[in-house]
Structure formats: structure tokens, C-alpha cells
């Protein structure tokens, strides 16, 4: 663990639920880690595992994928696929000896501004404790 290490966390948020939840966290002026950079997608099901892996290989210390709660997906089933892909990705990371704790999948609804704050702060603290991503030596921009 390094002192004064500011992690870089990428969050892929789905337009209909988690992005709206993140906006609500803003509207209610909660504190969200500034280390989090958000990339908006229409559905958590859009998040290709390759995107997540690319993020980690290019310098992200942690990657968060957030979508609608199961059953609430605006596109009916997208988040179920997200869940499956994510589970497989985590498993792949473990098999390859990579730190799968740097990956997080969370369900945040449009009315859960508070929860968004909690999830992101918890994740950021966890990543801080884990230290910088060891994969980012050669390929980091």
C-alpha cells in the first residue's frame, strides 16, 4: 500500500438506472470519489469484457460496472448478460493470477443516489488499500 496514492477508477454506468442514480447523488450533494471517471453506456450489457480488461491494462486501478437491478433493465435482459459476462471475466482474472478484486459489478437504481455514493466510496477505499494496479507499468499512457 502506498501513501498518497490516488487511484484511477473507471465506472461504466448505464444510462437508465446507474447514471441517473449518479446524477441523483449529485443533486443531493453527496461526496463521490474524484478518482472515479464515468463513461456512460446505454446498457450495462454493452460493457464488453474486453473494454474492462483494456481499462485495467491501460492504467485503471479499478473498474466499476453499474446497471439496473435484475428485473428492472430498461432493455429487459441486458443486465443479466452483464452479470454473466462479469462473472466469467472475474473468473478469467483469477485463473490468470490477476487481481479480480479490482473489478466490481453493482446494481444502482435511478432513485439510489445515496447507494451510489456508498458503493463508489467503498470501492475507492478498497482500491486505495490495494495500491496501484501492477499491470499498468508498460502499457499505461
Amino acid at each position, binding site marked *: 500500500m502506498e501513501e498518497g496514492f490516488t487511484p484511477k477508477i473507471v465506472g461504466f454506468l448505464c444510462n437508465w438506472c446507474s447514471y441517473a442514480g449518479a446524477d441523483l447523488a449529485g443533486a443531493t450533494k453527496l461526496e463521490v470519489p474524484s478518482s472515479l471517471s464515468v463513461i456512460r453506456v446505454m446498457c450495462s450489457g454493452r460493457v*464488453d469484457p474486453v473494454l474492462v480488461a483494456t*481499462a485495467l491494462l491501460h492504467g485503471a486501478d479499478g473498474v466499476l460496472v453499474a446497471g439496473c437491478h435484475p428485473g428492472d433493465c430498461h432493455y429487459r435482459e441486458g443486465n443479466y448478460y452483464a452479470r454473466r459476462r462479469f462473472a466469467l471475466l472475474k473468473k478469467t482474472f483469477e485463473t490468470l493470477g490477476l487481481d479480480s478484486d479490482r473489478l466490481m459489478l453493482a446494481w444502482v437504481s435511478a432513485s439510489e443516489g445515496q447507494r451510489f455514493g456508498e458503493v463508489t466510496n467503498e470501492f475507492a477505499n478498497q482500491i486505495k488499500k490495494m495500491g496501484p494496479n501492477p499491470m499498468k507499468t508498460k502499457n499505461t499512457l
Partner: protein
Amino acid sequence: MAKKIGVYVCECGTNIAEKVDIDKVIAAVSPIKDVEVAERHKLLCSDGGKEFIKQSIAEHGLTHVVVAACSPKQHEVTFMNVCEQAGINPQLSQLANIREQCAWVTSSAEEATDKAIRQIRAAISRVKYHAPLKKKEVVVSPDVLVIGGGIAGIKASQLLAAPDRKVYLVEKASSLGGKVKSFSKLFTNMESGSSLITQEIKSLLDNKNIEVLTESEVEQILGFLGNFEVKVIRKAEGKEQNFNVGAVVLATGFELFDPKGLPQYGYGKLDDVYTSLEFEEMNIPDGPTGGKVLLKNGKPPESVAIIHCVGREEKDYCSKVCCLYSFKFDRMLQSQLPGVKVSHFYSDLCIPGKSFQKFYEGTKEMGVEFVRSAKTEVTGNGKGLTVKYETEFGKQDSSTTDMVILLPAMESSGDAQKFAEMLNIPLDEKGFLVEEHQLLSPVSSAVEGIFVVGCAQGPQSISESIVQSEAAAGKILSALVPGRKLELEVRVSEISESLCLGCKTCIDVCPYGAITFDETRRISVVNEVLCHGCGNCAAACPSGAARLKHFTFPQIYQELKEVLR
């Protein structure tokens, strides 16, 4: 063509400006390659702000616009419209969220400023990769196919038909009317169902814009919203009829659960145990008994037992209307056979709504007996029937009766299965066609352009069936306007012919069935009418052939690259 990007940073009064050092932001982004101009403004979403952007676009000959302000969920469309008005394709813009997800959630001004710069850099890099997607429209047919000539199908047809909108009403029987033909009385006003349906049919047949095809069955429906190709077999003539429609309404009605499978009720074994539909038929003036309620021995019954919830446990749902029509039976019995003793055996009374409790209480006042029974059995006793019951407290008792009327569960008619397969609409575990959204789209099926109404959708009353038909008409009349083309979603998926491996994974994951397989070219093809732009196909595609326009891998990568810098 050289890119000229205009970057506009909103102060949002003090909402952004009090946290984000906007001068620093402008200084950071101005030198970026292709950024032609970077300016700040007090309130970009105001009329003044929008004018400011438009003038700046004209002055600098801009090709792309990046706005750093509030959430795209607030104003993405606002600034896209500004671009369009200024002559720039609206897709060549990007809104960076530096308010809700930056200024408002970061207490340190330094960190907020850095974050803002990151997000704006990401937007600038991304927008360079945007494609000037064009709006697309397709010609659609405003005509409608209605399948099922019962009350629901008839009402839908009447409401939809117009000189510029033809309705094809296909009914497999030789005459229209469905089940309501058999109801001599309707609850709660006790008026004639058969008269009602006769009037409706007459009015329908007079309608020049409705083509009625009785003794006919739909053999095949291909296509999608706005463009369905229908093949109907006219059984009487042995001929085929083909036509095009824009939407389909399924109104195939219900059947009763067959109580033969439940030996405890003696149906099919004991004399004088009838289903509710059989009882209805007994009451029709030109029915099998000339409208008289009679036992097998030709005599009228002196006592009748009505048993609720037959098959409820097996089907695992409440059929909603049986309690209500059983009170109708009470009145019909009392009216024809004054003094007849009627007893109900039920578990829970289902009488929701403002008027039905009164209807029930009126029934009680007539002297009808209500016995709450957890388990009911019917046996023969040599002279007539015995109803054995057990209360919820375990007390057992019995009573004799001349006639038993069973109230079986209402199931979706057998045709639902046929259409589910034909149209690729899932059936739920109860056998009913699945809606697009149980609460918000109750009459739309999971397939766009196909609607399910009446008891095909779920057990319900005549009034509710008519409302659903009117609802389907409302959705069709709203979406398919004669002469108006259907505007398609712009940010849809597309599949590269050269990269597609033909693995069909995208077809499996598409929630809307918007992707089909072209057997000749051996590739998957996206139907832009049905695509909702979720991107699941893009994420699933192993070769990168499937891409979601405006959310492609390169575009997202550009954002990623910048935020990790």
C-alpha cells in the same frame, strides 16, 4: 475534412463556477489538437446561451461541438438541437457532465477542476470519432389484422377501421361472437349478452372498412412492425389470401380448464355436474334445453351448489371473474326457479372495485348461502348429489343438492400456443402471451407491433376486455398514422458483413429479436425498425462485427484513454 471543435464550458451560475476553476479548464483544453475555440458562458441552456453557441459555430466554421455542463440526461437533446439549428449534424456533439458528477460531488476545488478537465478531454477525443448518423424513416402500412372475432376482436376492429385504414378480422368459426354469444345475462346489470353481441356484429358487418374472414385461419405472419406479411387460409373455399398490415391484434379468447382431470368433483362421471359454460348454454333461449335450467331427468333442480376455484390450485392463479358471474347465476336461477336453494362453496371472495361488493351483498340478501370451504368434494348419493366440505378450522360437513355448477379456471385458448410459436412471442408458465411490460404496456406483446387483448392476455371481464381492445387501438392509432412514415432510432446496431462469422451469438442475446440470420450470405442482419440500441450484440460479438452506432468500441476507448491519462 479538417475537424474544428468548439468547446463551451458552462458556469451554471455558480453551481459549476464556484467549484471548478473554469479559466484553468479553458487553458487546459484550448491547445488540444482540433479544438478551434474554447469559451465559457454563464448559462448555456438559456436562450442566450444557445444563441451564443450558434453564433460561435457560424463565426468559427465549426464541425463538432463539446459542451461541458450538466448531465446529458438533462440537456443532451438541447445541445443536439442547437447543433442541428446551426447546420451541424446533431450526432457530432458530446456533453461532458461536470455538474452532477463533478462540481456537485467533489468537495475539493482542485480535484473537481482536474476531474472536469479529464471529462472534457474525454468528450473532445470521443467526439472526433462520432459519425454524422442520419435519421431514417420507413414506409409503413396503417392496416391492421385482428385475430379472433369475439367481443374483444370486434371492438378493436370497429375502433381501428377507417377509410385510410383497413382492418382484416379473421375468425376460425363460421360466425362471429365468441363466448359472449352464450351469455344470456351479463353481470351486473343482468342484460343480455347475446343481444349485445348481435348488435355489435351487425354494426361491424355494416362497416365497409372491415373485411371479415370467417371460417379462416392465419397460417403465417412474417415481418415486423409496420410491415407484416399475412397468409390466411379460407377453409370453406380452400383458398389462400395474402395481404400486408402494420400491426396485429391477437384476441383469441379463453377456454375453461377441464375439470375431468379433478376426480373430486365428479365431472364427467356424475349426472348434473356442469361447468359454468354448460350452465350458460342451458340458459340460452335457442340452446339445448330451450333456455330452461333442467336436470338430466328433465326436471328443474330444487337446489344448486356452486363450487368456486375449480382448478385454481393446478393453474396457480385466480381467474378474476368467476365469483362475479356466479352471483349472476344466482339471479338467473332465482328468476327462473323462484324458491330454489343456492349454496356457494368458496375459499376467498374476489370482488374488487366500487360496485361488486354491492352486487355480492344483494346476492346474500336473496337468501343465497355462502360456505367458506378449504376442501370441497362432490359425490353421488343415489338420489342426487352430496357436497362434502371442510372448513378452514377442520370442521367437516356435507349438504345434498340436485345440481352442481363448477367454476373452472379460465385458460388462454389453444390458439395462443400456435401464435406464440408463429410470432415468437413467449408464453408465460400459465400459458398466456407475455406482455412487453406487465404494468406499463399491458396490451403490447413482447414483439413490437403485435398486441394481445382480452382473455388471450389474461382472465378478465367483458368490460376489461373491451378496455384492452380500445387500448391496443390507441397504441396502433398513435404509432401508425396513415401517410406518416415511421421514424427509427438513430443509435442502432449494425453488423459488418465482412467481419461477421455467422456464429449467431448476437441473435441469442438480442432482447428484441431485432437480429435475423441471412441464410444466403450466412451473416446476421440487424432490423433497424426493431433495434432499441442497447448494445448487447456488440458486447457479445466475438469478431467485433456487431457495433452499436454512437457507442462503438473506438468511441468508448477514446473516453477511456483520456480519463486514464
